[in-house]
C-alpha cells in the first residue's frame, strides 16, 4: 500500500518498513484509513457516484500501509483526521524517550524523526517524566557505533543482518520500553556489509565510526556515480564538501546492488584525499631525481623519449580501472605507436556470496570490448620483452608495474618509461615522465561491470593541484606523438566509441542514465539479488 501510494504521489511516512526487508509493522507511523465498497446485495449492481466510483465503507480503525496490499476499488485516506491523529500520537511516543540531542547527532539533517516531527508532530512536549536510560556510544563493531537512547526499535538493522547479510549478530534485549538493541557480548557487527545498517537506520542510533562527527550532512553535496572497488559497479552517492569526500553511500539499483554496498567499497575513498596524490607532472632529470614541470614540457618529454621506437618495441600496460573513454585513447595510442603489446593488469579473488565480484577491476569488460584483449593475456610477453630488451619503451597507465611482476632493474634499463598515476608508487619512481591523473571521483565516463551493464561515473570533486582528467592526458600523449586530435569533450569521446565499437552503438553518455544500460550478455549473476528475487517470489518483500 505504501508503494501504491508512492506511485500516485502520496508519501506515507514510515520508519520500520523498508522495501527490501520483511515488514514487521512495528513503528505504526504508516497508519492510514482504509475502506472497500460495500458488497452489493445478490443480484444488485454496485452503487456508483457521478465519477463512476463506488462509495467506500471506511474501517473504523486505521491500518498499517506497509503490510496491507491494495485491491480494486479500495479507498485509502493518507491525510484524514484519523490518519493525522495516529501520526501525531506515534511521533509523540517516539520522542518522549528520545534524547533530542540533535545538535551533536550525525543523523541531524537526514533524520526521519526530525523530518516527520516537523510534518506530523505536535510541536510541544507533554512529557513530564524521566526518560528511560540506555547504553550510549557503544562500539558494536569496527565500523559501527550504537546510541541506544536514540534507537526507535524499528528493527531494520536486525532484519538486514539476519535477512540480507546472513550474520544475525544484532538483536533486542530486555522488553517493553526498556527494549535495547544489542550485539551479543563478545561478538561484533563486523561483516563487510555492516555499514548498510547505518544507512537504513532512520535515526541516529547507528552511526559510522568513519563518518562520525566529520561533517554535517547539509553541508555536503551528493554526486551519483558508481563504486570502482570491484567489478560489480555498485551504484553510489559520493558525499563531499568542497573537494573533500566525506562518505559514500549506496544508491538503489535493482539490476546491480539493490539498496546495498559493501563496507570495503564505500570506505575506499580516503586515498582520494591522500597526501600521496601526485599533483604535478614530473620529468626525471639527469641526476635521477624528479622535477616538477609544466604539462607542455612533460608531454614533450614523453613524446621525445618514445621517438624512434617502432612497433612492439613499445608496450602499453593499462588499467581495467580506466573508464571506457580512457581505454578508447589507450587503443588510439597503441594504434598510433603501431604496437600490439597492449594489456591491462587483471585482479581476481575476493568475491563473496553477496555483492563483491571475483573480478576486482571495475571495467574488465570495457577492456575486453575496447582493447580486444583478455586481461593479463599479454603481460607475460611484455614482461619477457622488458627483461630481454626487445621492449625498449613502456607506457604504464594507472598500474604499478612492480606490483604487476616487472623487475625494477628491467624498468630502469628502458629507453622510455612514461606513466600516468594517481598516487606516488614504485613505478612512478623509476619513470622518466610521470603524469598525474584523476581518480574515479574526479571524472566523468563510463564502465561495463561484470554482468555487462554500462554505467556512468560522475565528477564529485576536482583533482588536486595540476592533476588532470586522465582521458585528456591520454589524448594529449596521442597528439604529442603525432596522432589525431579533435576530441574536446567527454561526450565527443563517447560519440566516437559509439561509432566505432558495436556494443555502444546508438548510445550517448546521457542515455546511459543514472541506472545504466545492459550492453553485454553474460552468465554472471549477483548472489544477493538472486536471493532477493526469491524472497520477493515468496511474498516476504514487496519490491
Amino acid at each position, binding site marked *: 500500500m505504501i508503494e501504491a501510494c508512492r506511485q500516485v504521489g502520496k508519501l506515507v511516512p514510515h520508519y520500520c518498513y523498508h522495501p527490501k526487508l520483511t*515488514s514487521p509493522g512495528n513503528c505504526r507511523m504508516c497508519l492510514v484509513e482504509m475502506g472497500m465498497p460495500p458488497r452489493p446485495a445478490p443480484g444488485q449492481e454496485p452503487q456508483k457516484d457521478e465519477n463512476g466510483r463506488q462509495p467506500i465503507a471506511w474501517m473504523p480503525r*486505521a491500518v498499517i500501509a506497509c503490510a496491507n496490499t491494495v485491491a480494486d476499488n479500495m479507498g485509502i485516506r493518507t491525510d484524514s483526521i484519523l490518519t493525522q491523529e495516529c501520526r501525531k500520537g506515534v511521533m509523540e511516543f517516539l520522542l518522549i524517550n528520545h534524547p533530542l540531542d540533535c545538535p551533536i547527532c550525525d543523523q541531524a539533517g537526514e533524520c526521519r524523526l526530525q523530518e516527520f516531527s516537523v510534518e506530523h508532530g505536535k510541536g510541544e512536549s507533554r512529557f513530564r517524566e524521566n*526518560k528511560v536510560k540506555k547504553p550510549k556510544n557503544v562500539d558494536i563493531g569496527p565500523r559501527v557505533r550504537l546510541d541506544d537512547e536514540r534507537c526507535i526499535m524499528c528493527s531494520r538493522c536486525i532484519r538486514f543482518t539476519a535477512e540480507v547479510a546472513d550474520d544475525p549478530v544484532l538483536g533486542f534485549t530486555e522488553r517493553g520500553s526498556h527494549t535495547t538493541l544489542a550485539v551479543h557480548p563478545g561478538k561484533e557487527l563486523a561483516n563487510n556489509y555492516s555499514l548498510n545498517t547505518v544507512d537504513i537506520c532512520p535515526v541516529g542510533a547507528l552511526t559510522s565510526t568513519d563518518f562520525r562527527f566529520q561533517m554535517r550532512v547539509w553541508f555536503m553535496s551528493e554526486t551519483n556515480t558508481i563504486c570502482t572497488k570491484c567489478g560489480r559497479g555498485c551504484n553510489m552517492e559520493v558525499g563531499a564538501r568542497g573537494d573533500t569526500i566525506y562518505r559514500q553511500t549506496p544508491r538503489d539499483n535493482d539490476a546491480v546492488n539493490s539498496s546495498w554496498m559493501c563496507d570495503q567499497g564505500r570506505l575506499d575513498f580516503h586515498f582520494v584525499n591522500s597526501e600521496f596524490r601526485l599533483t604535478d607532472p614530473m620529468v626525471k632529470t639527469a641526476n635521477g631525481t624528479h622535477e616538477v614541470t609544466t604539462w607542455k614540457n612533460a608531454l614533450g618529454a614523453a613524446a621525445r623519449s618514445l621517438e624512434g621506437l617502432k612497433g612492439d618495441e613499445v608496450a602499453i600496460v593499462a588499467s581495467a580501472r580506466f573508464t571506457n573513454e580512457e581505454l578508447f585513447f589507450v587503443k588510439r595510442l597503441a594504434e598510433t605507436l603501431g604496437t600490439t603489446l597492449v594489456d591491462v593488469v587483471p585482479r581476481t579473488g575476493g568475491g563473496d556470496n553477496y555483492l563483491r565480484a571475483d573480478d576486482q577491476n571495475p571495467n574488465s569488460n570495457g577492456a575486453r570490448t575496447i582493447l580486444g584483449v583478455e586481461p593479463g593475456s599479454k603481460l607475460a610477453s611484455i614482461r619477457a620483452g622488458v627483461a630481454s630488451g626487445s621492449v625498449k619503451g613502456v607506457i604504464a597507465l594507472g598500474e604499478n608495474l612492480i606490483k604487476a611482476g616487472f623487475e625494477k632493474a628491467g624498468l630502469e634499463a628502458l629507453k622510455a618509461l612514461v606513466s600516468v598515476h594517481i598516487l606516488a608508487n614504485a613505478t612512478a619512481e623509476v619513470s622518466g615522465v610521470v603524469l598525474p591523473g584523476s581518480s574515479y571521483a574526479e571524472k566523468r565516463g563510463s564502465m561495463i561491470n561484470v554482468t555487462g551493464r554500462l554505467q556512468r561515473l560522475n565528477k564529485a570533486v576536482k583533482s588536486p593541484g595540476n592533476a588532470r582528467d586522465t582521458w585528456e592526458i591520454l589524448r594529449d600523449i596521442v597528439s604529442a606523438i603525432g596522432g589525431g586530435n579533435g576530441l574536446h569533450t567527454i561526450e565527443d569521446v563517447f560519440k566516437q566509441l559509439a561509432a566505432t565499437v558495436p556494443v555502444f552503438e546508438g548510445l550517448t553518455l546521457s542515455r546511459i542514465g543514472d541506472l545504466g544500460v545492459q550492453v553485454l550478455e553474460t552468465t554472471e549473476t549477483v548472489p544477493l539479488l538472486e536471493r532477493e528475487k526469491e524472497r520477493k517470489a515468496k511474498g516476504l518483500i514487496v519490491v
Partner: protein
Amino acid sequence: MMASAITYLPGKEPHVREHRLIFKNIDRVGYDPSIECYEQNGGYVQLKKAFTMARADITNEVKKSGLRGRGGAGFPTGVKWGFIPPTNTKPVYIICNADESEPGTFKDRYILHQDPHQLLEGMIIACFAVGAKLGYIYIREEFPMAAIIVEKAIAEAHAKGYLGKNIQGSGFDCELYVHRGAGAYICGEETGLIESLEGKRPYPRIKPPYFPAALGLYMCPTIVNNVESLCHVKHILEMGGETYAKLGTPNNTGTRILCVSGDVVNPGYFEVEVGKVTMGEVIDVLCGGLKPGRKLKAIIPGGSSAKVLRADEVFKLKDGRELTIMDIPMDFDTMAACGSMAGSGGVIIMDDSRSMSWVINNLNNFYAHESCGQCTPCREGSLWMKKISDRIVAGTASPDDVDTLESVANQIEGKTICAFGEACSWPTQSFIKKFGDELKGDCKPELAGKVVAEEGAIAAAGLVAV
C-alpha cells in the same frame, strides 16, 4: 462406571447455582489426575466416539454448540476451526493456550492440576477434527507443577494408546507436548505465543497477513484454543452440539467458569450457565456478599483488561433494557452492550475502601511490565501511563496529568499490532471516564506546569544530566 455419589472437599462444595461440567471433578474427594481415575469416570469415551465420526461433523457439532472461546475474545470456536483454508496441504497444528495470565483469572490452573486428561481428550478430539498431528500445550512458567502433571498425563495417554501412532486403531497419529512459557503476559496473545513457541521473542505478528489459521506455527495453519474451550469440546460431543447450546442463553451458550476476586466474603471460582446468573447474584449469592459494612464501588467484570463498571451506573441497552450493575447477566453480549466485556471470566470486585487511583496505578504497572515493546504506541505509552499514575498516587501530579493520561491511552487504543493496546488502554480510559474526579482529587492543582521529574528539575536549573 460412574461414581454413584460425587462428594467434594469440605469448604469446596459447588454452589447450588453452579452447573458443573468442566469443573465437575475439581476438588472432588477421591479424584486424582491419573488416567485410571479419568477412565473410571467415563474418560476418553468421547474420543473413541469422535473416531467414528466424519471430521467435518465434529467441527459442525462445535459450531452448533455455539461455544465461544473462553480465553478472552469470545470468538466462536467452531468458526475458528473452519478458518483453515480448504485447499491447505501443509501440516496443521493445535496449540492449547494454558498461559493463563489475565489478572483476575484463575480457572485453567485447576483443570491442569486436577483433571489434565479432560483437557487432553478435548485436545485430541480437536486435533482429529482439524487433522493436526502435532500439538503443544503452552503452560505458563508459574505453573511448574501443572507442567509435570500434564506431561505425566501425556505419557499415560500414550501408554494407553490415546496418543501416538494409529490411535485406537483409527489410523490417526497425534503427538502432544508441553511447552513452558517463562513469564510473559503477551504469550497469551496467540501470535505472540506462536513466536514464543518458535523460540523467538514473543512479538505478536501483524494480521494481515499472519492469521494463525492460515499462517501460524512454522507458517502453517494453526488453531490456538484456551484450556477451558478445549475441555468443552469433549462435553459438546457427549451432549451433542444442539443440546449443549441449550445451556446458557442464545448466542452465549454453555457453561463458563467465573473467577471472582477482591472485596467479597467468599471469592473463588464458579462454573455457571452463561448468562443465567446476574452480577448481583455473583456477589450476593455465590460469593456471600460484600464484606461487612462495605459498599460496592466498582467492578472489573472480565479480567483486568475489561473496562471498569461503576457501582451506580445504569445501562440503557439498545434492546430497551435498563440495567443496574447488579442486573447484568454474566454473558458475552450484555456485558459488551454495557460497555465492557465478559473477557476471560475474571471478576474483580472493589468496595468503597479502595482508591481508584491506586487501583489503576496497580494495573498500569502490570501493563508497563508486560508490554512486549515491539510496537511504538504500546511500548512507549504503557510506561508513560504507569509513570503518570505513579505520580497521581504519590501526590506529585496535577489535574492536567489526568487529562494527559487519558489522551495517552487514546493514542494507544486501536493503533497497535495486537490487542494488548486495547488491553492496556481500556482500564485507564474507563477509570478516568468513571472515576476521573477521584483521580483528579488525588492531584495537586498547584503542580500544574511545574517541574515534577528529577531530570526536569536538573534541566530547569540549567544543568545537564549525566
